[in-house]
C-alpha cells in the first residue's frame, strides 16, 4: 500500500515536471518566433509592481505657477548635451485637426477655441517647465500640454504600437512600454543627441492608464530629467481637437 502511494506521488511529480518543462519550452520558442509587437523581454523590471495604485486620490497636476513666460534664464538650465537637436514638430493650427481613428471620441467643437497659439523657445520652455525636483515626472494640465505641443516639445506615445498606428498625437514617437524593444527605442532617443533637460511629454490612454508613468521611470533612468505626463492622454487630446496623425510614422 505504501509502495503504491509512493508510486502515485512519483508519477504526480514526473507528470508535473513534464507539464512545466513543456510549458517553459513552448513559451520560450513562441516568444523567440513572435513578431516585435508581441515579443516580451524575459528579463525586465517594473517599478512599483506590487504597489496598489490609489484609486480616489489622483495627485493634482503640477502646473507651473509662472503665469507668463519670463526672460530666458540659461544659467538656471541643466547642463546642455552636445548637438542640441531642436524638435521640429509642427505647431498646432487653430481649429484644425486631422480626423482621428474611428474608435476615438468625436472632437468637441466647443473645446477647440481653448487652443491658442503660444510657442515658446527652448529657454522659455525650460523656465516655464523646469525639471521636477526629486521625482522623475510631473503631471501637466491639458493647457500646458497644448503649449508644449505648440513649442515643439518631444511627445512620446506609451501605448501599444498597434494602437499608435490607429491614431496618435501628430509628431509623437511610439515607445510602447509593453513591447520587447522598449530599451532599444529609448536608446535611439538618447542617441539622437537631443537635450535631455527639455520637457518630454508622455501620454497613453488617459484614465487609469499607467503606461506613461512606467515609461517615465525608464526614460528617467536613461537620463531624461524633465518628463511631463499628460494624464488625460489620447482621449482628451482628440476631444479637444488636437492635431493627430495615423500610421507608424510620427
Amino acid at each position, binding site marked *: 500500500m505504501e509502495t503504491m502511494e509512493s508510486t502515485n506521488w512519483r508519477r504526480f511529480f514526473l507528470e508535473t515536471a513534464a*507539464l512545466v518543462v513543456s510549458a517553459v519550452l*513552448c513559451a520560450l520558442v513562441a516568444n523567440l518566433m513572435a513578431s516585435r509587437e*508581441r515579443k516580451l523581454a524575459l528579463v*525586465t523590471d517594473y517599478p512599483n509592481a506590487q504597489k496598489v495604485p490609489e484609486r480616489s486620490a489622483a495627485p493634482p497636476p503640477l502646473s507651473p505657477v509662472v503665469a507668463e513666460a519670463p526672460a530666458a534664464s540659461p544659467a538656471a538650465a541643466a547642463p546642455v548635451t552636445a548637438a542640441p537637436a531642436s524638435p521640429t514638430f509642427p505647431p498646432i493650427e487653430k481649429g484644425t485637426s486631422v480626423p482621428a481613428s474611428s474608435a476615438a471620441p468625436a472632437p468637441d467643437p466647443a473645446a477647440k477655441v481653448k487652443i491658442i497659439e503660444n510657442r515658446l523657445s527652448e529657454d522659455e520652455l525650460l523656465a516655464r517647465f523646469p525639471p521636477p525636483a526629486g521625482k522623475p515626472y510631473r503631471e501637466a494640465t491639458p493647457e500646458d500640454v497644448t503649449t508644449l505641443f505648440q513649442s515643439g516639445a518631444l511627445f512620446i506615445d506609451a501605448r501599444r504600437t498597434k494602437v499608435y498606428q490607429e491614431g496618435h498625437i501628430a509628431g509623437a514617437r511610439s515607445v510602447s512600454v509593453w513591447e520587447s524593444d522598449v530599451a532599444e527605442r529609448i536608446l535611439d532617443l538618447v542617441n539622437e543627441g537631443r537635450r535631455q533637460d527639455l520637457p518630454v511629454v508622455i501620454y497613453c490612454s488617459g484614465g487609469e492608464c499607467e503606461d506613461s508613468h512606467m515609461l517615465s521611470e525608464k526614460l528617467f533612468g536613461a537620463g531624461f530629467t524633465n518628463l511631463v505626463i499628460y494624464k488625460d492622454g489620447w482621449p482628451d487630446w482628440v476631444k479637444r481637437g488636437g492635431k493627430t496623425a495615423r500610421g507608424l510614422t510620427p
Partner: protein
Amino acid sequence: MAGLGEARGKDRAGIDAVTRLASFLTHPWLTVRVQIGLGLIFIIAALPKIVDPPSFAHMVLNYRILPGSLVNLSALVLPWFELLAGLALVLGIFRRTASVWIGVLLCVFMGAIALNLFWDNPIECGCFDPKDAGKSVEERFFDMKALLLRDAGMLLMVAQSLWAERSRRVAGAPSPVVDPSKVGDLV
C-alpha cells in the same frame, strides 16, 4: 432495521441515496464530460494570452501581486501551462495531475481576485481576453465578484474529477479512457 434503512432512503436493492449519488458523481460517463469541459475552458482561456503576451503581462501587473521581475516570465509561461493542462484533460492523459494543477491555478486566481477586492483595486480579470475592455470601476468590481462564483463552480468540476479518479483507483476499476468508437456519445 429495515425501517431505519427505509428512513435513510434505501431502495429495494439496499443501496442508500448517498451511495447512489456518489456512484453517479464518480461515474466515468460524467467524469469524462467534466474533464473535457474543464480542459476546453482552459484551452480557450489560454489561446488569446498566448497570441498577445504583452497584453497579458499588463494584466498580470495589474494584479499587483508578483514582483516586477517575474511579470513577463509569468505572462509567457502561465498561458502555455494552462493550455497543456487543458489539453491533457481533453486527451485523457495526466488526468489527475492536470486536474490538481488546474485546481491550484483556480485557487490562485480566486485568491488574487479576492485580494484585489480587499485592496479596493478594480482590475480586469484578463481570463479570456487579455485586452483592456475599458470597463468602469463599478463594472470591474461586479465582474470580480462574479468571477469568484464562476471559479468556485470550476473548482467543483475539479473536485469531481479528482474524486472520480480516486474512487476509480481505490476500486481498481479500469480508467475511463475514451473509446474512439463512442466519441460521438461523449461530445
